[in-house]
């Protein structure tokens, strides 16, 4: 009976772990492990609100970071890019400015990771530089083409 209880407990925890980890290196940013959550803007939307875009999950984090923090976050995204089945990336002088990654998924829903970085201030003084970073994680039965069609401003 004790064994059954232990196995049941482990099985109960499994989906929670599976959801929270997502298998991405960038998950650490969403979890507030790189930058504390009181320094970022986190948006989470699931369910019917996203139906019109064929999305099931929208999870974004916006933050302003210094050069070293930016490097840490960009490194995680670039690590994730190694596992992507499709990627669009802009790297300027070795600095990642934009990434759109699509990851393999077992079910029809696809997983996307978007990254955007732009300078905010301190262009004249490296010590004061601030980089504005946005990371977006999406899940849904859609494509990059459809997402661009829905959200692109020409």
């Amino acid at each position, binding site marked *: *009976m004790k064994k*059954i209880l232990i*196995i*049941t407990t482990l*099985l*109960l925890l*499994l*989906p*929670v772990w*599976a*959801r929270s980890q997502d298998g991405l290196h960038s998950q650490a940013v969403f979890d507030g492990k790189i930058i504390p*959550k*009181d*320094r*970022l*803007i*986190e*948006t*989470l*939307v*699931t*369910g*019917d*609100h*996203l139906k019109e*875009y064929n999305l*099931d*999950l*929208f999870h*974004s984090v*916006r933050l302003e970071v210094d050069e070293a923090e930016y490097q840490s976050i960009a490194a995680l995204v670039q690590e994730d890019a190694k596992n992507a089945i499709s990627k669009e990336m*802009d790297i*300027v*002088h*070795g*600095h990642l*400015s*934009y990434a*759109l990654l699509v990851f393999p998924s077992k079910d029809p829903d696809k997983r996307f990771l*978007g990254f*955007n*970085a*732009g*300078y905010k201030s301190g*262009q004249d003084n490296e010590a004061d*530089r601030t*980089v504005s970073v*946005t990371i*977006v994680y999406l899940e849904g039965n859609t494509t990059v083409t459809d*997402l*661009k069609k*829905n*959200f*692109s*401003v*020409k």
Partner: protein
Amino acid sequence: MTQDNWNNLIERYFEAETTPEEERALREFLARTEDPAFDEARAVLGYFSAQRARRAARGRVSKLTGLLAAAAGLALVAVLGHSVLSRPDDTCVIYAYGEKTTDTQVVLDDVTNTLTTLFSDNQGPDVAAQLTDFFK
């Protein structure tokens, strides 16, 4: 075996000195004999046999209960796992520097702005140009 031999075996049985083979032989003998001299032994051994059968049945019931409990546990895991993974709930929230906002319009505007920035044809070159200046 003679009656004395059986009586001897019965005595050894109650002294717990018999082997399993001897006990089986004794049970078979008591089951077929109609000699009233062995009624008492038959009654006692019958009681023990009935007890053993009940214990075996209880063991089977206990195993069945365990299997049912495991099946119920797995069903619960499946239901909870599906409910967690399938995200049937409509979450719509912003945590801005620790402050929670649940105004649907505000949140959805934020979603649209973020995705427009990400998927806009114009964002790539602009950001690249910015960073070119920034990191040169």
